[in-house]
């Protein structure tokens, strides 16, 4: 599915938030993260490999995520990403900012619609 220019812009702004929130509950590997983003957004948001992994490494470099190779019986080893304490703080702050932003946008657009 082609992405519109506005989708690309929104994605850039929210990519970190999406990834951090997906590994909040439990560690996940890269493919799982990309699938979840695609599924939960109903296919409107997708990350391809060339963007997802550089982003994961960046978050890891900042100390918000930790990646570990895990081997499970009968499976290939996979790299799982876990949220760090610092990442948890960043996620909380980004979520708050995002919600405030959405509320603000809604107020403006609803006011215009009602005018």
């Amino acid at each position, binding site marked *: 599915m082609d992405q519109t220019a506005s989708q690309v812009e929104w994605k850039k702004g929210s990519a970190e938030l999406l990834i951090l929130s997906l590994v909040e509950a439990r560690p996940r590997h890269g493919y799982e993260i990309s699938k979840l983003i695609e599924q939960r957004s109903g296919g409107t948001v997708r990350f391809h490999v*060339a963007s997802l992994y550089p*982003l994961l490494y960046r978050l890891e470099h900042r100390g918000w995520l930790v990646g570990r190779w895990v081997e499970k019986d009968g499976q290939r080893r996979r790299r799982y990403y876990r949220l760090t304490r610092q990442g948890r703080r960043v996620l909380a702050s980004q979520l708050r900012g995002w919600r405030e932003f959405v509320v603000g946008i809604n107020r403006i657009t609803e006011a215009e619609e009602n005018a």
Partner: protein
Amino acid sequence: MPEWKPEILRRLAPLNLSPARESEIAEEIAQHLDDRYEELLADGHSADSAFRAALDELKDEDLLARNLQSVENDLYRGPVAPGKVGSKLFAGILQDIRYAFRMMRKSPGFTAVAVLTLALGIGANTAIFTMMNGLMLHTLPVRDPKSLIQILVHYPGDPEPGFSDFSWDAYQTMRDGNRVLSDLIVGSLNVYDVSGHGVESQNVFGGNIGDNFFESLGVRPAIGRLIGPQDIAASSPVAVVSWSFWKTRFNLSPDIVGQKIISNDKPLTIIGVAQRDFYGLSNQAQQDIWVPYSLEDHPSVALLGRLKRSVSFEQARADLAALYQTFVDRPETNPFFRRNEVRLIPAGNGISTPVTQMLSTPLKVLMATVGLLLLLACANLAGLLLARGASRQHEMAVRVCLGANRARLLRHTLAESLLLSLIGSAVGIFLAYFAVGALIRLFSSGRLMVGVPVHFDVLRHLDARVLLFTVAIALLTSLLCGTAPAMSASNTTPASALQSGTKIGETKRQRLFGKSLVAAQVALSLVLVSMAGLFVEYLSHLRNDLGFERNNLLLVTLDFAHSDYNAAQYAHLSQELARQLNAIPGVSSSTFSEMSPMEGPGASSFASAEDHPEKTTPVSINNIAPDYFQTYSTPFLAGRDFSARDEAGSRVAIINESAARDCFGSKNPIGRHITLSHITETKGEKTFEVIGVVGDAKYNDLGQPAPPTIYGSLIQEGFLGSQLAIRTRTDASGVSSAVREAEASVLKNVPVVRMIEMNDQVDATIVPQRLFATLSTGFGALGALLAVIGLYGLLAYTVVRRTHEIGVRIALGAEGAEVMRIVVRDALWMVCAGLAIGAPVAFWGKRIAASLIPDLPVANQLPIVIAAAIMIAVGLIAAYLPARRAMHVDPMVALRYE
């Protein structure tokens, strides 16, 4: 499954990542593409379309690299493959250390020997340095400690550094006349018996001080006020106590000001507490009480000075010596003082105390010895590392082929020795802790220490300076033992080292270096072992050349202070007690005296013979009962012993051989007269008729020749001799309870305050010498052991290296004995080279030791000869196994590899 990695790697190539990082990213992304591919197949895509759709995830040819660039450049700085040249220092160092750990785990035996060797070397250094630090390097917590000096007078020939004991006149002369000191401070270090309300009677250190003591040292009161000029002028019965005294005895109660205490039987009022961190004039002795020196009946003062800024030590000494001379030149001055000379010593690290006097020289000598030991340990380890390095040449060559440069190989090899020495240091600090404890126990047994509240704990103080020292030692060690192996490793030439079948390659220079390391170990061991022999001989000489028999002799100290006996009663009761003691089975004789040998400083005086009244000889004095010489087993050379008849007659004395020679020359002293002047207590003159001459016996200092000694009669002099000596036929401790019973039944209200065997009393006076003998023996043994290990390591390695050559020799008909001779000859060559280097160093070391420790038997060369014999034995022991192995080389096996 399609092969994704080539696609991914091609896209990553421009980033020039390290191979490890590159493969990690490729693996992760390839998995992602696998998953995507499988999913597409499951959704019904054809293999071809699934492949293209999955590959599409990588987007443009350069997008992945572009997105990764900023992240990866921050994260990973270039290649860090083992041994490969890297621009990223830190990552490489960590890798070197990790690798070094792996190597250590791989050969635990080698690691254990190396760590233990270094731990012993570093631990011994840390232990001795910890004590030196506590004893000599701490500065006093006072204002400008560096400018403080202690002023002493030294009697020529006295082995002690001198004593700070000036009369009031001498003090005034120096105070008013000097041009070199900004302050002349009265301040001493004495022991006080302190008691009072809420304070249990006990001995504490304190000081008699002058008016400017606290002000000049920059000490403030924590509470109340400090002693000042008005207290000195009025001789006020006041005292200032330390903060720790305030805390432990008064629980920091502010009511302390105005409290009464008794100090040395004088009632005093506490007027204040000194500031918290001020503990007095010595690092080893917490001073708890300070009183005005003017409270003493015959004030003599201990002096400290503060040098003026531009004044040198020597200028100050000359100025003060000249002033002291004007004082002693006065007619009324005691002539005893005329021979004294003024000495200054720095006091910034605390004034001279029994502890510093006893320990500072031994610690310096020991520091030098443990330095040698560490050097030996380094040479040993360097040899082992070098031999191991030679067997790792193949590995080094591979590294060079993979792009490692010399510096990197150097660092890589040094990391191993650094790690070994750091672990060695950690174990060494652990060992040092126990070593210091053991040394302190030995020191505390010293005569000067018993009953004095010396704070030895300062000697185990582990501060930043000690840690810094240990770290510095560890770094130095790692450089000393790591550099040569590292240089050798970094010189690897891959072309020859990688050829299959090449013998473990070494250049001639490297072989020579390895051999010279072993020779150096033999040389250092020779020095250590010969020093050990020297000190053991010295100790045995001290213990046995006494002039009396120290075995089977029990000494009992009695306290007559509260007995109220007069001299006549004492004479009767002491004879009765001696009779009862002699009846105890196992006792052969018993006697009383004022002093027992080696008990401590006794009385001394100047003697002149009747023929030469103008010639005076310094003599030691003891007052004794009959049977003294029989009990102590000192031989009578002429004349007779004291007897009951002497009580009524004229004053008589027995003199020793030295006194007879010094006072009477070759004349027979029996029946002649001798006069003592300025006896310590009476200061009067006394003339004695000499009735006997005995052999020389040590009196106070085992390190000095027996002094000329005059023995007076206890009964004639009217003294109550408190020292009882009992000679037994077997072990002296066996009669102690019978002695106590007899004493209690005869001298009912005279308590026994001390019971000690003569052997222990002798040993308590020679703590430094025992310390030298014990430690140097340990170090010598350790040195010899290290030499065995070093020699064995090199020989074993040489035999492995020469297996082929030995095989050829055997194949050509060489006998086993001949092969053995080759190995043993190698060993003996190295030992002989070591001896040739070590012997002059040992001679030189002996001379240095002799300059620090008078009376050391340096003329005797036997210790060096014995040490050399031990080293040759060491060489043969170390050669035994390698030689056996060489004899059993199978020529077929050895030649098969050709």
